[in-house]
């Protein structure tokens, strides 16, 4: 209780400084993560690269392989955690997860369709493969369906959205399973690899796409701090506080669909970050979205970056799927927070 008191007192007063500290620590951790990998890179080589004087091999390894991957990890991690925090606020449920509105299952189905039916086609758009595009379209389509099912003349019901999300996820899962049944061995392997998620396809155009989407969401996010704070009280209470509830819900669903859709298309399904990071942050600092969303974004970026560095090095040169690592790293921290929550005075 004392601890969370201090944090809550501290947050508004030192917020700008904290933001700078978070950015600075992200830059430092990103640089450190660049030295991790199948070929160990010394700190000296890293400094030489920074000064533009490294040899060709380290230059290629750092600049063309590891840097895009680290940047993609930052973007995807922050997108997933932010979208998780937004969905938990929108559904007034600390256990909600973006996959609840059907994005992940729809994306998987979209990717499977692309793998099975468009196996021969080779063209791509902005270096996004057909599989990525299939995943994005599948994810967005599922959210659209879920939203339409839950919307009638009197507005959108979030509880119907949750249930519709489960139903759509089942349908999408059925489509994926049916395709697996008909797919040949090569297709099967591609599907299961895609589903495990990973950042190994990182390149500059993908980083640009992820960074653009993340940038847009972070710029729009501050408009929704107060509406989300009010929505936690309940929908009619938020309306009485002057919030246009239906419009807010529509915008937030679009933000979450775009954010999660993009990250699933670029890195497959990486579970856990969207659910647990916001929850962990909320346990420590409380549910005020003004602080919750930016800190979640920071923690999500950090967790995925560290997890990916581990994934690349633990049994190098083989890589472990990053979703596995993020779960194995984050879950113990989360469990220890849950066990200690009475110390924070934040029982739910």
């Amino acid at each position, binding site marked *: 209780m004392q601890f969370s008191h201090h944090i809550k007192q501290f947050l508004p007063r030192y917020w700008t400084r904290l933001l700078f500290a978070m950015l600075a620590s992200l830059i430092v951790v990103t640089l450190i993560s660049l030295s991790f990998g199948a070929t160990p890179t010394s700190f000296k080589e890293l400094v030489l690269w920074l000064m533009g004087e490294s040899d060709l091999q380290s230059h290629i390894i750092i600049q063309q392989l590891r840097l895009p991957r680290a940047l993609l990890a930052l973007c995807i991690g922050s997108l997933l955690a932010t979208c998780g925090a937004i969905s938990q606020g929108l559904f007034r449920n600390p256990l909600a997860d973006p996959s609840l509105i059907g994005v992940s299952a729809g994306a998987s189905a979209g990717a499977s369709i692309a793998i099975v039916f468009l196996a021969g086609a080779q063209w791509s758009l902005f270096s996004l493969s057909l599989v990525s595009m299939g995943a994005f379209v599948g994810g967005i389509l599922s959210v659209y369906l879920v939203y339409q099912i839950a919307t009638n003349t009197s507005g959108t019901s979030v509880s119907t959205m949750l249930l519709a999300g489960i139903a759509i996820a089942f349908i999408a899962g059925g489509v994926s399973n049916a395709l697996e049944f008909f797919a040949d061995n090569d297709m099967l392997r591609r599907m299961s690899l895609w589903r495990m998620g990973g950042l190994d396809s990182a390149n500059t155009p993908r980083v640009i796409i992820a960074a653009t989407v993340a940038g847009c969401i972070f710029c729009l996010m501050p408009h929704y701090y107060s509406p989300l704070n009010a929505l936690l009280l309940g929908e009619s209470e938020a309306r009485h506080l*002057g919030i246009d509830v239906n419009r807010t819900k529509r915008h937030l669903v679009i933000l979450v669909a775009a954010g999660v859709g993009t990250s699933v298309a670029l890195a497959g399904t990486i579970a856990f970050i969207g659910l647990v990071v916001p929850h962990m942050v909320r346990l420590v600092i409380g549910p005020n979205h003004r602080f919750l969303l930016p800190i979640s974004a920071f923690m999500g970026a950090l967790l995925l970056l560290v997890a990916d560095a581990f994934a690349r090095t633990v049994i190098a040169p083989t890589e472990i799927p990053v979703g596995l690592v993020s779960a194995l790293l984050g879950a113990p921290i989360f469990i220890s927070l849950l066990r200690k929550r009475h110390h924070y005075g934040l*029982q739910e």
Partner: protein
Amino acid sequence: MTIEPTNSDKNITMPLTVSNMSVTVSNEHGDTTILQPTNLTIQSGEIHAIIGPNGAGKSTLLKAISGDLKISTGDVTCCGYNLRQLQARDQSSKAKAVAALPQFSLLNFPYTVEEVVALGRIPHNSGQRVDAQIVGDAMDLLDIGTLAKRNYTQLSGGEKQRTQLARVMAQVWRAQDATTRLLLLDEPTTALDLGHQQQLMKIIQDFAKQGVAILMVVHDINLAANYADYTLALSNGNTFRQGPTADVLKEDMLSSLFDASISVIHHPITHKSVVLS
């Protein structure tokens, strides 16, 4: 050429005018009118109580006025905003003048008491310092100042109720934020002990004296008898009786309204009616 009065300057002095308002809900069995045409006018500083048996339409009336339920016929004007012509963009300026306390709170996120009360200032752009002052004053008034840093989800029912009331009062706290102010309360004394019931009703009375119009649904007829200037009795969605509280709360009226034997006696000290059942 005549200029049409705009939405916001019509009835600007009147916190609430309800004319011939009815509410119809439709389900698979067809349409049911759950509130027959009702009329109600509230001036600044008045306290109005809505009474009636369970299912009489008390909460329906309040929800229709607060905009949670769609009205089928008639008109409602709250602090100058006609609900039928209310645009989405007017919502936030209406929220500066009209606050509503719901019967149940669904909040299950670990906000502190102070943060919950501060949510009441969302419609205003009065600045952090003013808001913090108002939040502090509202908490002190409702006797929850010592709970400011406590986690809302860990409070007792009565403490939660007082926190929510502090929130809606903070929303319409200052006269300078709105020309007329209206506070809608759905059973504000639920979950409160006798001491806090009395304290809360006194606070509401003082709030009304500062010019806030108050419309509240009450279960306890004696609260209406003691504190309301006017009372509206509803039965089966119909206006059963309406007028100054002393004229409405009569033995025969109450007995037929609640279908029970009820006596009304004179309080020797307050000189108000006391309802015994």
